[in-house]
């Protein structure tokens, strides 16, 4: 992880100029935004793409025969191509748009869970999942008689691989649904090994890539996973759009999730037939403007390049760990070998909420709470942590501001 960002290819000050919001001041202080893991800020190009559509090229898509509708359809469907290229999907029809990651995982839990999995089979998650990758499987368990298994994690916050393998060994697990990167611990999970072991035991694999795809190049063909879910707003895109990628033959075997316009082939009262994938899973008017915005975000990220982004975040993370760890009373939660730019911590003398408020008073935005991962909190005997998370626009100086701010908070509570 000792890669220092090369300023020739990655000029963070130039990147910051692409994000208008970063010049704001908060409570009279410069805005230090360390909450990108919750949702990232939007570059000018994303704003412009959405404005351009609304100002010059907008109509409903797909069934329109007129010029505006055709142009809008092209712009919207270009988002699907951009996503397919981003993830190295084999086929653009493997890209299903949803409202967010949560919508993608619920789609899978419904259509794969109720349509393909059989009562008595199991779904295996890990001990560091976001609620969005826990609750849909609980609902499936309770309605469909699926067993829900949880692969434990170690004190360092890594997947316990031996336990994971043991949980697969009876062959009952039909689907592994696991985070590709923890939104609390920063842990990047060993995707290759997860997939290899799952497949060897007859299980399909879905990764919750909500965090991972922001920090790492994701190649679904190289990973050889079966499904991959993520959400646009964390990758510098708009809210209201998410992605489920799935292998085409699996998607084709799955029944639809929601019914309505755009997802049908033909409708009579007796029986309806479904459109081909991906449209079978996209009911109603899609998130057209959001697709257009997401494409702009992907183009932006691709122009910077994952290598540069990953290196930048690695440098930030390394610097943050080296600055925070020595602060008296600070304990960092999660010590994974392979980790991304998300750092959770607690302070001995102050509750995480007080820490967040007092950092906010200094203009520094961090998140505090259970981060939609209550079972993971309990695993570490905590109710909440404070969490700093980094984006492409985060600077080493901002990390220093966090460390200095935290020292002040700690002194204040002395």
């Amino acid at each position, binding site marked *: 992880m000792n890669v220092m960002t090369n300023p020739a290819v990655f000029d963070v000050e130039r990147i910051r100029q692409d994000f208008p919001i970063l010049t704001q001041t908060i*409570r009279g202080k410069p805005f230090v935004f360390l909450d990108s893991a919750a949702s990232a800020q939007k570059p000018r190009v994303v704003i412009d793409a959405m404005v351009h559509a609304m100002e010059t090229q907008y109509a409903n898509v797909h069934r329109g025969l007129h010029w505006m509708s055709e142009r809008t359809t092209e712009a919207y469907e270009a988002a699907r191509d951009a996503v397919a290229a981003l993830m190295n999907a084999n086929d653009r029809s493997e890209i299903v748009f949803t409202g967010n990651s949560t919508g993608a995982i619920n789609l899978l839990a419904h259509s794969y869970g109720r349509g393909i999995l059989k009562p008595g089979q199991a779904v295996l998650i890990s001990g560091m999942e976001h609620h969005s990758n826990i609750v849909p499987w609980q609902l499936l368990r309770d309605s469909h008689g699926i067993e829900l298994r949880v692969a434990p994690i170690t004190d360092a916050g890594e997947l316990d691989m031996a336990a994971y393998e043991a949980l697969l060994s009876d062959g009952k697990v039909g689907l592994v649904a696991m985070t590709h990167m923890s939104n609390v611990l920063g842990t990047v999970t060993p995707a290759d090994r997860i997939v290899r072991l799952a497949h060897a035991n007859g299980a399909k694999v879905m990764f919750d890539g909500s965090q991972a795809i922001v920090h790492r190049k994701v190649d679904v063909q190289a990973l050889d996973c079966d499904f991959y879910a993520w959400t646009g707003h964390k990758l510098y895109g708009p809210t209201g759009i998410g992605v489920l990628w799935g292998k085409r033959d699996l998607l084709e075997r799955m029944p639809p999730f929601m019914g309505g316009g755009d997802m049908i082939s033909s409708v009579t009262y007796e029986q309806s037939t479904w459109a081909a994938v991906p449209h079978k899973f996209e009911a109603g008017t899609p998130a057209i403007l959001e697709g257009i915005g997401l494409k702009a975000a992907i183009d932006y990220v691709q122009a910077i390049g994952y290598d540069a982004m990953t290196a930048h975040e690695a440098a930030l993370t390394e610097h943050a760990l080296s600055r925070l760890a020595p602060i008296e009373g600070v304990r960092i939660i999660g010590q994974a070998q392979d980790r991304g730019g998300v750092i959770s911590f607690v302070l001995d003398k*102050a*509750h*995480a*909420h*007080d820490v967040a*408020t*007092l950092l*906010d*008073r*200094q203009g520094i935005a961090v998140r*505090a*709470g*259970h981060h939609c991962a209550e079972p993971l909190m309990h695993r570490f005997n905590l*109710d*909440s942590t404070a969490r700093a998370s980094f984006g492409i626009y985060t600077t080493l100086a901002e990390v220093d501001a966090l460390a200095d701010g935290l020292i*002040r*908070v700690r*002194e*204040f*509570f002395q």
Partner: protein
Amino acid sequence: MSQTDNFEDLRDLYQEVILDHGRKPRHAKRLETFDATAKGDNPMCGDRVQVWLKLDADSIGQVGFEARGCAISVASADLMAETVQGRATTDTRALFEAFRTMARTGACPDCAPALADPMERLAPLAGVHEYPSRVKCATLPWHALIAALDGAQEASSE
């Protein structure tokens, strides 16, 4: 405090009174004998409080509480206990409303003059209104108190 200048910005919410009551609450104890008790729970942030009451004929005799949470919620519980002890039970609901208004808006201009005195005691928490998501940290113990007076087990969340 020699540090006052250094931490000026941090003090507009976390006044010395709050830090002090947050660190060393005077009433943070379960009452062995009590007439009413209720819990308050804020699942969104994990704050949890339980309040115990001894009641006299028309007034609140003694208040004890156990809180798990941030400095704001602990200090608010402690200031609440200090303020309502000995007050007429009928008054308490009006005081809660006044306090809630202050926590949300920073002041309670239309409050009954009779409440001026207790509101002065609670005034250190007025700064919370600038932090909307923290308002419920300050009001949670009050919800538990009112629930206990109503004979409920648990405060319904706001």
